[in-house]
Each structure stands twice: as structure tokens, then as C-alpha cells.
């Protein structure tokens, strides 16, 4: 069952990540692209690329028929779904199998058993893993939701039965907010996962989000690769992740890892998966859900364990055994990931589509830039806001934090608003540095950020005024009729300002 060519049913940084893994394995990569994505980075980087439809994902990246047809036409023998889109869609996995394509992920039965949070919570209950009180089944109607919500008590969480990434998730503080929150959650869930089913769960205050990475091969071997802490969130979407978690000691890691492996084994799970837990202030952990796919934040685990998760996914899909045991997985140092999103953190986190006119990423020692964009590329309004993941490794958590602060300061994006300024503030915050994390930390410290002022304000004015000064200087010059060569060269050369080069 050798894999020689993989179609990547995704876009953005994760499609680029899979292209890279394929190339390193000597496997050909096939990208697909919507009409909005002809010039996207994953198209440029893959060995081959084929159009699959108009810009809206429902007409392209979510079209199982077109993806399977493209894979067959290109002669691919496997399909990697990335995360999001169809990654946790059992019907897609089945369609691939029916077309003779290896699906790089768990078998459809395991996607159904674990990916559907309802079924997963049933299994976890059977395996004796602790859970937060809530509905096991999706709520059928608004009326039923009202009744159940009254039993669970407010505040509570609405969560999409399929999917993850914070989409289709809403906090409801009181009964009056329930109806609107249900509508919003269902609408988001339908748009993101093609299924509007949601369930309710008791709300845990100041919780930490900690998840275990597992790998399971087709020969019955299961290992965990330690935990990731993903407590820094906004709008229930992760913004900063790290491994190891500052709240997890070796004994707790062993217990959580053992619980994660138990759930995964019970479901006949194969390939990479993540078991999510909620940890309360007394360091009790509760099963939340299983993500039957690669996580956005997988790189922190990779940097700490030295194990290439996408390579492992491809090897497992090809039927190869893991070749190592739990004892061989030895963590080293600490890793942190920051998500650089096209959002305006000072403007209500509104998405910020546009063209990236200037870009200078962070680099240097132990800095990893998993980016889906490049200078000059468009950031489309049709897809999610994730531009790049900035990941660092350090010998310990303090070294990793110092390195992340340095890397964020280096990262320059012009043309769209990004989360970088807020990420920098969080990483510099004493609560973050002390490891006092919770999923509310960001909301709590955000108001502090708006007020900082001082010398930099004047420097910003200097830059803005000089930009306008330069703009006026250009305007007053007579428009030149450029010679042919000069016109071409001018188009290829960045503006020079304040002197000749």
C-alpha cells in the first residue's frame, strides 16, 4: 500500500505543511484551488495543482465529488484532508475509499465514533473517563434546549456536535441569550462542517484547555506524545498553544495520556488524533472531545518530541508500524505556537481581508514559520483568518517565551491587520510568564492593552507624517513617461525612499 502521490483537500498553511511533508518523503503532492486561490501559496508549492470550483468553500473545498474526481484525474493514490473543511467528515473518508484512494486519517467508523462528539462522550463515559455534565445527544429544538439548559444551569456552553476550532461554540450566560446563541452556533456549524447539530455542557469557570496527542497504527500500537496547553483563546478559538503545559507534571501526564490512549483504543482509532480535556483550578481533568485529524497546533508537539506528525500520518496510512513505543517518546525543552490571524484585535477582532503588501517573517534560531501567505498575495474573505503559525522552541519555558517575544517583534505584516500586537502583549504578561493560564486570560488582560502610550506614539506619528510627506513629494513630481526598460524595472523594484540606491 505504498503511497506515491497525495491530493491535499485543503488550502492555506496546512496544505503547505502537507506539501512539505510529502516532498520530504519523496511523495508527489497535488494541490486543489478555488477560483480565489490560483495564486495561493499551496498552489505554488505543490507539484501539481487543479481548479475545483468557485470561491465559496461549499462550491470547492467542501465538494467531495470534485475532490475525488481531481484525485483520480491526477493519478493520486491517497488524500490528506488537513484540518477543517472535510477533515472530520466520515462521508468524505468513505468516498475516498470507494474511489480506491487511501484516506490519510482514521477509518470512517472511527471518525463517526469519535468525531461525532455525542458518540465520543458515550464511549468516554463507558471507559470511566471523567466528563463535564451536559447533554450527550444533540439538542433537537429550541424548546428542548431551553428545558435542558434549565437542568444544567447557567452559564453554559453550546458546542457543535461536529468540528472544532471554536466554530459553532457559544457561551450562554443567561436564559435570555439562549435563542440567539443557538442560532449563531448552528449557523456557524452548518457553514463550517455541513451539520448544524449542537449540544449543551455545563460551563467551568477559569478552565484550562489541555489536550493529548495520540498516534495509533494499523497494527494495534498506540502511543501518546504528551500534552498541549491551549488556554489562550478569544471567541473560543485558540490563539497561543504550548507543550508541555505548565500545569501538568509527569504523573498527571501519564494519567491523561493513559486515559487518552484508552479512549482511542476503544474506538478502533488509527492515525493521528487528539483527545481534548478541560482542566479545572484543582487540576482535575475532564474529557471534552476527540479531534480525528491533525490539529492546527501540532507543531509544538513536533518540536518537543522530535517526531514529524505529518510524516507519521503518511506512514500510518501506508500501513507501516510506528516502530517505537511509549518509552521511546522523550520530550525535550518547551515549544510555543502563536497564531497570526488577519484580524483586528483593536477593532473587535473583525476579520481583515486584503492584500499583503509587505511581509517580513520571523526567523533565526529555533523559530519556525508555518505560513500560508507571501508578500503580494491576497487574503480572501472566503476563508478563515489564519495567515501563519509562528512556533518557537526553547530549552525551557522561559527560554521559549523570550524567544517568542523576540520573534513576534520581528514579524512584519503590512496591508492587513493581524493579531501580532496582542500576541506580543500576552507573551509579555506576567500571568502568562508565570503559567497562570485560563481560557479567560486573554479577555481579562485585553483592556490593559489599549491604554499603553508614550514615546512609541510619537514615533508612530513620525512614520505616518513622513509617509504622507513622501506621498505628496511623489505627487508633485511630473509624471514621467518611462522608457520601456525602466517601466519593467520599476515594476520589479520596491520603492526607494529617502535617497538613491
Amino acid at each position: 500500500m505504498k503511497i506515491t502521490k497525495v491530493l491535499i483537500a485543503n488550502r492555506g498553511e496546512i496544505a503547505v505543511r502537507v506539501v512539505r511533508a510529502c516532498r520530504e518523503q519523496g511523495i508527489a503532492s497535488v494541490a486543489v484551488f478555488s477560483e480565489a486561490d490560483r495564486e495561493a501559496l499551496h498552489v505554488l508549492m505543490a507539484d501539481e495543482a487543479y481548479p475545483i470550483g468557485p470561491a465559496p468553500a461549499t462550491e470547492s473545498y467542501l465538494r467531495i465529488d470534485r475532490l475525488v474526481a481531481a484525485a483520480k484525474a491526477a493519478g493520486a493514490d491517497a488524500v490528506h484532508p488537513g484540518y477543517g473543511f472535510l477533515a472530520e467528515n466520515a462521508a468524505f473518508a468513505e468516498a475516498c475509499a470507494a474511489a480506491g484512494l487511501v484516506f490519510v486519517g482514521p477509518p470512517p467508523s472511527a471518525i463517526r465514533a469519535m468525531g461525532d462528539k455525542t458518540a465520543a462522550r458515550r464511549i468516554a463515559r463507558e471507559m470511566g473517563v471523567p466528563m463535564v455534565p451536559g447533554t450527550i445527544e444533540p439538542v433537537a429544538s429550541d424548546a428542548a434546549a431551553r428545558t435542558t439548559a434549565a437542568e444544567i444551569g447557567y452559564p453554559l456552553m453550546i458546542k457543535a456536535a461536529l468540528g472544532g476550532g471554536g466554530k459553532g461554540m457559544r457561551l450562554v450566560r443567561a436564559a435570555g441569550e439562549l435563542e440567539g446563541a443557538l442560532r449563531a452556533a448552528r449557523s456557524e456549524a452548518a457553514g463550517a462542517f455541513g451539520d448544524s447539530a449542537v449540544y449543551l455542557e455545563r460551563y467551568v469557570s477559569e478552565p484550562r484547555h489541555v489536550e493529548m496527542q495520540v498516534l495509533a497504527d494499523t497494527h494495534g500500537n498506540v502511543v501518546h506524545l504528551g500534552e498541549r496547553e491551549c488556554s489562550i483563546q478569544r471567541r473560543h478559538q485558540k490563539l497561543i498553544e504550548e507543550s508541555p503545559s505548565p500545569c501538568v507534571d509527569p504523573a498527571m501526564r501519564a494519567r491523561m495520556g493513559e486515559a487518552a490512549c484508552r479512549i482511542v483504543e476503544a474506538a478502533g482509532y488509527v492515525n493521528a488524533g487528539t483527545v481534548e480535556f478541560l482542566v479545572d483550578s484543582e487540576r482535575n481533568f475532564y474529557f471534552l472531545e476527540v479531534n480525528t485529524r491533525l490539529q492546527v497546533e501540532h507543531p509544538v508537539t513536533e518540536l518537543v518530541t522530535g517526531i514529524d506528525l505529518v510524516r507519521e500520518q503518511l506512514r500510518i496510512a501506508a500501513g507501516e508500524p510506528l516502530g517505537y513505543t511509549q518509552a521511546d517518546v522523550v520530550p525535550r525543552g518547551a515549544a510555543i505556537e502563536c497564531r497570526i490571524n488577519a484580524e483586528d484585535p483593536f477593532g473587535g477582532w473583525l476579520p481583515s481581508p486584503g492584500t499583503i503588501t509587505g511581509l517580513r517573517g520571523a526567523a533565526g534560531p529555533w523559530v519556525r514559520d508555518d505560513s500560508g501567505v507571501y508578500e503580494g498575495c491576497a487574503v480572501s474573505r472566503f476563508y478563515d483568518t489564519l495567515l501563519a503559525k509562528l512556533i518557537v522552541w526553547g530549552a525551557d519555558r522561559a527560554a521559549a517565551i523570550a524567544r517568542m517575544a523576540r520573534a513576534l517583534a520581528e514579524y512584519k505584516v503590512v496591508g492587513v491587520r493581524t493579531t501580532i500586537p496582542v500576541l506580543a502583549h500576552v507573551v509579555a504578561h506576567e500571568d502568562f510568564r508565570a503559567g497562570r493560564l485560563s481560557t479567560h486570560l486573554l479577555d481579562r488582560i485585553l483592556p490593559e492593552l489599549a491604554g499603553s502610550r508614550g514615546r512609541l506614539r510619537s514615533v508612530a506619528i513620525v512614520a505616518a507624517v513622513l509617509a504622507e510627506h513622501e506621498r505628496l513629494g511623489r505627487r508633485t513630481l511630473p509624471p514621467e513617461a518611462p522608457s520601456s526598460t525602466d517601466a519593467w524595472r520599476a515594476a520589479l523594484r520596491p520603492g526607494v525612499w529617502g535617497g538613491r540606491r
Partner: protein
Amino acid sequence: MRFVATLADGVEKVEVAGAGGSYRLTIGAEVWEVDARLTAQGIYSLLIGGVSYVAEVTDDGGACVVDVGDEAWVIRVEEETRHIIRTHGGDASGHAGQTLTAPLPGKITHVAVAVGDRVEKGDTLLVIEAMKMENEFRAGAAGTVAEVRVQAGQAVNAGDVLVVLEA
């Protein structure tokens, strides 16, 4: 050359002298000697008294956004005469807050109000879906809905007028 810089927290008069990368700026009472270069698309290098700053300047429709250090400012810069004309000629944005315009392109997924509805500050007016996120827009002040120019399912561009409220 004389400019006026308008920030969220104040207005500053700025005078610029110099050329060829070397400038003297007077901001209010402060004098800044600046060695400045545009080193890449919108990325500026400023050396001020030996201290090295890199500022990102993004054009944002009339104003610009400046990122420097971990801070970001929205700054509107005008020649002084233009500023005087604009501010004395009556500012069209004086009635902002009564009119909800789309701050970004996207698709209307839900309209929560109809013409004639009475809304309180903070009430949801409508929801725009963009980049896979539902973004709720709320009334900035109490009022009555005078116009609803969009409906659910409709695509909008940044700047489109969506809802008009009367006080």
C-alpha cells in the same frame, strides 16, 4: 511642510523639514531628528538618536495604521490647510453612529431588525459572515430603525450602508 495628525486620543500639529532621508520633525513642542528609509513595501526604518525603530505603515482608506514596537495606531495625516478646510467645512462623519456601514466585505447571514423597530444600545442589528466567522453588529446608541438596505444572503462590500437609525 506643516501637517496635522489626528489620532484617537488627540490631534497633533507636525512640521517637517529636510530631505534625502534626513528630517527634522516638530511635534507640538518636541523636536525629532530622524534618519528615515523605506526599506520594503510599507516597512520603514527610523533611526532617532541612535535608537532603531521599524514601523509598518498600512494605508487604511484615508487614515493609515502604524505598527511600531508592540503598539498600533490609526493616524490620519493631512496637510494643515486641508485639515483646516475639512474641519471648518463641516464634517460628514459627525453623524457617524447613526449609520451602520459594512467595515469589511462579507455576506449578511441574519438581519435582526426591521424599519420602525425601536433598538437600545447594544442590540444586535445584523450579522456579517466573513472569513468563516459570524460577526455581530450592534447599535451604538438607542434609536429607531429608519432604513434597512440589506437582506440575509446578500453579499456586501466594505463601506456599504447597511442600516440607518434615527435618534
